[in-house]
Every structure is written in C-alpha cells, then in structure tokens.
C-alpha cells in the first residue's frame, strides 16, 4: 500500500498568509498528504480557516493543532480542559519539569515537544518515558535545528536526541519527525527527512513510520474521538433509533 506522509509542525507566520500558502504548495509538490500548523491560544481563527480552505483547494489534509506552553501543572490542566474538544492535535512545549511530567501522564496530550537549543530543558528521561508509555503521548522531533545548526551545538543536540530516541524506543513511545519550518527553502521530501533517523540507528521502515504511520495514527485516533458518533473507546453510535 502506498505510504501517506504527514508534517504536523509547520510554523509559517500566520499574519502573512501568502508565505503559509507557499509552504502548503511546496509541501504538496514534495509529496506530503497531511499538514499541521503551529498555533497558539491567541491565534486568529480567521487566518486558520482561510489556511484550511487553501489546503482543501490544493487537496491536502489539514489538521488543526495547538501548541500549549503552560507555566505550571494547573495551567496545563485548565488549558487542556478548554482546548481538547476543539483541536485534533495537542502539543505541549515542555519548558519546566513539572509541566513535562504532567503532560507525559495526561491522556489528552498527543505530542511532547522540548526546546531544541536549551539542553537543560530537555526533560525526556526514563521517568518521563515511563509516564508517557502509560498514556498516549508521542515524542516530537523537529528537523529544523538539525538543518540549521552547525558545529558543536549540532553535535550536542544530536547527542541528546540519540539518548532520547533510545529511551523512546525502549518504552515503545512513538516518535514523530516534524519539520518545524517556516521557510520553503528549508522544506525537504518526507523520504529524505526520514533518512535523518539513520543518525539515531533506526532501520528504514521505522524511520519512514516517523513521518507517515505514527502521525497518521494519532490524527485518525483523535478524529474518531472528536466525531459525533464516538461514545467511549470501542463504542460508537452506528444508527439512532426512535422510541
């Protein structure tokens, strides 16, 4: 069966929709089928709607995604309560250990994202992985810093990512490889992006899964849950009867 490819983390400036449209067009040419855009709580809804319409025109599947950057555990919980039924993908940018631990154990969180340049804030360790393995969270890795950084900072980042991917593998946590890009010149083909997983000792099939099967399974799972026929895991309304 033909693989479908996804990039869940495009970061165009949403006040300049033309550059976002360029990213969508290029992604279509490169072979992506599903795209997600980084949005925050205060993002203008109108620009998202026009972006969604443009994706439909270019025959690309649009995924609504929100990036949460809470300061503490309680703020994360309240934000999750307000957005879970509105977005298909919820990503938590873990900037404190408290938030990282709460995000890992909360079943409403889909993606865990850690700051690429602040190595002290990369909290994905064994404890975090164990919590995440009992919930539904996946680890998101952005390729942007791997492309842009040079020299010792890239070496350090690679070293951290090698450790984190090994832990994720051990605890069977899905890894999502996203671009994190806002420029068309840095966009790459999905199969090329997947070859970066060679740096973390992934075989070809599991590397391709990080840009196709893993993101797709999260999106499909959440779409099922958000559909009106969903009741509980394993239970859905097939037909409504009349008494």
């Amino acid at each position, binding site marked *: 069966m033909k693989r479908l490819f996804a990039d869940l983390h495009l970061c165009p400036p949403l006040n300049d929709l033309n550059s976002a449209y360029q990213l969508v067009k290029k992604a279509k040419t490169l072979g992506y089928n599903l795209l997600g855009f980084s949005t925050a709580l205060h993002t203008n809804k109108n620009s998202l709607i026009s972006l969604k319409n443009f994706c439909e025109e270019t025959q690309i599947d649009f995924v609504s995604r929100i990036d949460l950057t809470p300061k503490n555990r309680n703020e994360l919980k309240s934000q999750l309560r307000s957005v879970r039924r509105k977005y298909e993908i919820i990503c938590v940018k873990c900037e404190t250990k408290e938030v990282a631990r709460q995000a890992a154990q909360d079943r409403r969180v889909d993606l865990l994202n850690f700051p690429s340049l602040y190595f002290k804030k990369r909290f994905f360790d064994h404890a975090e992985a164990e919590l995440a393995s009992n919930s539904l969270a996946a680890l998101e890795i952005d390729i942007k810093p791997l*492309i842009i950084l040079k020299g010792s900072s890239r070496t350090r980042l690679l070293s951290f990512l090698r450790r984190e991917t090994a832990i994720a593998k051990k605890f069977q946590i899905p890894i999502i490889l996203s671009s994190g890009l806002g420029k068309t010149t840095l966009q790459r083909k999905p199969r090329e992006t997947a*070859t970066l997983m060679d740096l973390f000792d992934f075989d*070809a099939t599991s590397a391709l899964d990080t840009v196709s099967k893993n993101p797709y399974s999260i999106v499909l799972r959440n779409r099922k849950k958000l559909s009106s026929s969903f009741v509980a895991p394993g239970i859905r309304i097939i037909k409504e009867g009349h008494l």
Partner: protein
Amino acid sequence: MKRVKRRYLALQVESPSTLHPRALIDAIWNAVSLLYGEYGASKTNLSLIEYNSETNRAIVRTTLVSLDQVRASLITITSIDDTQVSLHVLAISGTIKALKKNILKKPF
C-alpha cells in the same frame, strides 16, 4: 576481492543561480564530513557523474553501504557559495541507464 556495490542518485538542485559543479560536490563532501566525520565520509566514495546547469540536475555516485548517510547529509545542505540551496533526491538506481529512465517519469 568482493565487488563494491554502487548507487547513483539523481538530484534536483533548487537554487536561484547556476552552481559550479565543483562547488556542488565539495558541498556534499563537506556535509558528509560534518555529519559523519572524515572516517564516515571516506566510506562514501562520492563522485559527481553529471551536472546539467540548464535543468539544475545532477547525478552523484556513492556506495550502497553509505547511501543513507549521504541522503541524510544532503538534507543539511542549505547554502553553497553564499547562495541559498536545497537538494532533493529525484531517484536512486544501481545503473545510470535505469536512473535516467526513472527521472523521466518524475518531474520533481
């Protein structure tokens, strides 16, 4: 001695200006050396077979064992001679003949 298996990669160079073939292959060597070190780069046996400046397409040869390393390194190339560049793999094949046949089917 065991025969070394080779792979040919057809590349699409996305650049606002035409590149010098030497600059292109140097950039690829450099990217492999940065990511995998000099030892890793030495295993790739890279060479530029062809570069068409009109279509901005190139054919590069490498060894089968280091194919993934070369592909991963190609992603990291963002500029050549201060020009913003991105390289995309169009096709991979074991022979130049089959590679050229494959490229015709794929416009990008």
